[in-house]
């Protein structure tokens, strides 16, 4: 399995995969001018390594702010994850929402509707 370890910047999130327990995380503000350029290598990583991901892998998204360009990139990333994990139903998508945050809740609802995936809305901060 190739490493995936992208550090956060002022306008892009940290993206990381750890093997034990299997956990893919996207964490931080996502407001780049060109989200396609930022997320393309991550989608390519999923495409290359998805078949080797454990069935119980957790995909965590904790994005306090993101722009509409990132919204599209995140949709495409979720679809890549769906394709990669289609035969392994034990995986989990965790979408973190701050308390009383209608913006993030709405994004989770939209993604669930358009991808057909079960997206678990979680409150509070993810485990470090």
């Amino acid at each position: 399995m190739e490493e995936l370890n992208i550090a956060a910047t002022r306008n892009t999130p940290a993206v990381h995969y750890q093997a034990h327990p299997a956990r893919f995380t996207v964490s931080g503000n996502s407001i780049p001018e060109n989200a396609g350029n930022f997320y393309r290598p991550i989608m390519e990583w999923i495409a290359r390594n998805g078949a080797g991901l454990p069935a119980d892998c957790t995909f965590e998204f904790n994005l306090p702010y993101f722009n509409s360009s990132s919204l599209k990139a995140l949709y495409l990333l979720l679809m890549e994850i769906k394709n990669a994990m289609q035969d392994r139903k034990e995986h989990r998508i965790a979408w973190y929402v701050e308390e009383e945050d209608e913006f993030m809740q709405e994004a989770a609802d939209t993604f669930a509707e358009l991808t057909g995936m079960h997206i678990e809305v979680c409150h509070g901060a993810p485990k470090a």
Partner: protein
Amino acid sequence: MNKNLLEYQGQLSSEVRVQLITLLQCIALYNLGKRSDLKRLVGIALELLDNAQRYNVGSDVDFTWHIANGELIVQVTNRAVGTDAERLLKSVADIARMTPEEVNAAFKQQLQEEGFGDKGGAGLGMLQIARKSGNQIRAFAEPVDKDLFICRSEVSASLERTKC
């Protein structure tokens, strides 16, 4: 002194955009209090600044964030080439004719379209603003030179929401 006014005139880089959004989060929180739609309001400014940065000729913009009479008004002015100015006007005019249901449907359809524009746009910004503002978007373009326009986008959003 108007305590609900933020004005910025100058260069718009990615770093300036990040700093403005951070500042607006503080301004919104401390002037409006904790409420469930704070990100919706700041998000309107974020999308307008995104557009201005993406399609700007040069890098200077005028930006204002103003709260008065129960409304947030956000304005961005930048320079753009003719094709980008026309696209802005057409996009806003098309969205203005849509019902809220049509805006939502267009937003979801655009979200599922493959790919990004040449300048990194997803074609979602104005639709997202329309969803967040109740479709209160206005756009103006004034020619200043051959193939150069001054574009102004203005969004107003009601603050009549329930606080947390």
